[in-house]
């Protein structure tokens, strides 16, 4: 009886057991309990137990002195769908992206901000996506040093160059690109703390699976404040799991 490991979902387990359709396992009676707690077959939890049905042998008897055509149905296809959003939740269009794993693809996001990988190899657990998120500002022409009028008014105009405080390092070109390491199949179920942590991470909050309680609580509170307008949020993952699931997974 397989246990859900990192990168596993029903799709990959079904595929590993040779089932063409994940429903063969997912709808298997022995998994009804699991199905009750994991409403999405693609978001299980590390350590979940999946009971695969016994494989059914299919016997076909055909004469040996002839040629026969046997049609084997393809596996049901899966995909990976990513939507890039801005801080307000709006899709980001016109973003140039390049996927180098698990397959090579590239493109530019449309108005829906979507990046879709069809026919996903369900055994692939690692992806690499590069998106040029921001455009470097056009270099501004150098501003000539300001000269003081004569006579100098009072108060005198500010001469920026007179202030010697250290200026931050300029933004490097690579700072405008984002390189995502995609952990495919590693999104835990929404109704577990790790699932909330992973979604917080994906939506830009400072949290990731297995972060400690303090960090998680803080991130949840930030979420409650900025997304739910709750100034004194509880910090409990359970209190945002439904909302964050919707924000993260609803098309």
């Amino acid at each position, binding site marked *: 009886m397989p246990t859900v490991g990192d990168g596993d979902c029903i799709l990959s387990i079904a595929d590993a057991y040779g089932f063409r359709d994940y429903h063969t396992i997912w709808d298997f009676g022995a998994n009804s309990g699991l199905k009750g707690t994991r409403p999405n077959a*693609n978001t299980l939890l590390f350590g979940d137990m999946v009971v695969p049905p016994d494989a059914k042998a299919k016997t076909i008897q055909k004469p040996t002195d002839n040629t026969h055509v046997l049609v084997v149905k393809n596996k049901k296809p899966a995909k990976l769908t990513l939507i890039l959003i801005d801080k307000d939740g709006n899709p980001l269009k016109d973003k140039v992206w390049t996927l180098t794993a698990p397959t090579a693809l590239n493109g530019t996001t449309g108005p829906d901000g979507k990046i879709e990988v069809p026919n996903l190899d369900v055994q692939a657990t690692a992806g690499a996506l590069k998106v040029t998120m*921001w455009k470097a500002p056009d270099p501004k022409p150098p501003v000539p040093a300001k000269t003081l009028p004569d006579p100098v008014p*009072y108060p*005198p105009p500010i001469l920026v160059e007179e202030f010697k405080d250290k200026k931050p390092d300029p933004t490097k070109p690579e700072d405008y690109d*984002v390189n*995502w390491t995609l952990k495919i199949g590693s*999104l835990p179920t929404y109704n577990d703390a790790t699932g909330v942590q992973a979604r917080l991470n994906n939506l830009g909050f400072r949290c990731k699976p297995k972060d400690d309680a303090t960090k998680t609580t*803080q991130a949840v509170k930030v979420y409650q404040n*900025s997304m739910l307008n709750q100034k004194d949020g509880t910090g409990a993952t359970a209190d945002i799991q439904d909302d964050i699931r919707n*924000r993260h997974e609803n098309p």
Partner: protein
Amino acid sequence: MDRTAYVARTAYDLTHVNHLRVPEFGVLKLFLSFGGKTSKSYLPDTAPPPKTPDTKATDDFHFAPEKEKPELNYTIDDKFGCITKATIELFRRDVEAAIWKKELKADEYTDGDHKFEYDAKIDKSTEFPEEIITVQHSPYKFKITLEGENGHSDALFAWTYFHIMVHSFEFELGPKDVVKEAQDKALYDTLGGLPAENASSQIKLLSNIFSTGSDKADNTLFNQYKAKWTDGANIPVFAKIFIRNAADGKEDIPKAVGKIRLLWDYTDPDESMASQFDKAKEFLELAIDYYKATTKPKGDNCHKDRGGKRGDAAKYIFPAQAGYAPADALTADTFPFKVTAGSTRKWSSYSETWPTGKLMGKTGVMFQPSRMAGDDYTITAYFPHYRKPDGTDNLDVEDDEKLKSAIKKSTGKFQVWREVHLISYRKKASTIPSIAIGTVQGYYAPAYVSIVDKSGAIGDMPDYDTKLRAKTNALPQEKKLAVAAGDQGTITKSSLKFLSYDDWKNAYKAATGKNDGQMSTWLTGQGLETLQKYKTWLEAITDATIPKACDDYLSASDGINILQFDLYWEGGGGLRSGTNGFAATSFPSGSRSKAAYLQTRADYTGQGNNNMQQTTTHEIGHICFLPHAFDAGGYVNALHDEDAHWHNCTMSYNYNVERKFCGLCLLRLRGWDQTGLVSARASNKKP
């Protein structure tokens, strides 16, 4: 930027997606606000422009530390909690390190608007000894800097500027403690403050400097006056600086001033000739028109060629001072502020404020006007509000136009006068008409000489006969016998009553047993054979006797003593002295600082426009080193205006019109160097 995403596959019959976001954070604005005014917020070029720019915000924001507490406002954009650290720092010009820093707590850099009250306090340091920001280092820059993780930011910092400004300054007479010389301390007590703008005040330099004999033509007055007052009096002029509040009002916050400088400048107003009588005016106008337009600054005060300071680059009106470190108590007899001359505007000087201590928020100079009476000055101090990093400013230039936009304050007009004391006034008899001293003072005013009457009530001459007899009894027999018998204090209002010519001859003849022939021979031998010669002889006896006899009547203090009689002497048979007055230098207690004059006529019938006041003015003129003019005995024409222009100088004996000092006398009385002046009027003008 590297990120990790935990994503779900989507089965063929499902629709869920994975939303991915790269969080952005930053600061949206930073500004100060108070009283409806705000400072301008700046963001780096990479930051998106503010959605609603504050068009009313300016770089002129200013406030009054301690009296006003503006709010420092900032807006954070951090919906996703990326910020890990936020710091607000305060910078001043030319220094890389922050002069003040505040690490914000986590709840102070959350998403949204924040503000806190800014109290302007700062850690104590050499630059900020009062632990408050000051005008000295204004303008200032507030900057907020963010640090974050897990996100992207185009606005990790924002900044704003503000000023601590001078509103104005007011002048005050500095404390007496800072003056060193005794005569300056004495002068200080007479000042009573500084003249307000458009008013005027006199600086009266005590100068009881008197002739002691044959020194009226040799520039002794100039040299003695120079020895006493050298480069002039020392008057501490302080300025108290006020701070400008947010509403541009005035606040008294000395600790917010810091160490700033004022530029002290002066003008030399045109001398008014309105009170001069015409003949002197003509002489004076030519004499003061001496390189007027070419000295720096231009003016008509006494030029260096005549002993003054105008045009002398080495003589400062605001001399350099070392000053000393600010303290809670003043060092006696020491000027506290550092004063240095301008590099280009050499006649002006800079002074530094004390940033702490007893004189915190103040600065000042030792005002040292020339000693020359009649010289006048208006002081103007300027605040050089823009000081370059090298410490210089844009006011150290010769062009007056460059100073016009600076905050400034001017005093009224200071005018230098000489002060001479009338220290005692005695009359032999109360029935003798008194001298109108005010009239005499009026004759000296055009020379800027103040005859200050310190005599009090008119005194008498007690024990006159005793004092007189003590001197006449010591005379040779023939002289002693000429003195009338009786109480000389009551038998005459003159200084000395003699016998008539015949009575004296009879007395001497009886005393010596001479017969008529012997007497005649003796009189011829003595030069006393005529009544006229007898009168001259009596004049000489009086000259030799009275100053000594009356010496006890002189005040112990410095100044001029007046001893008034009705006639210098008189004798039996209607004999009378023709002397109106006598500035004797033979009083035993007389000195360079103490003099006396005998007024010896009350009835001026037959003397035209002459009178007691004219005589008094004339005799005090002698006391003040003026020689006779023209037809008077011992005259020195070279020290008077040309005869062709004015024949009736006070120092003449011409009574046909009211006598008044000629222009050259007036200038000598003012203390000018007579070697730089000539009698020929036009020659005194240059170019």
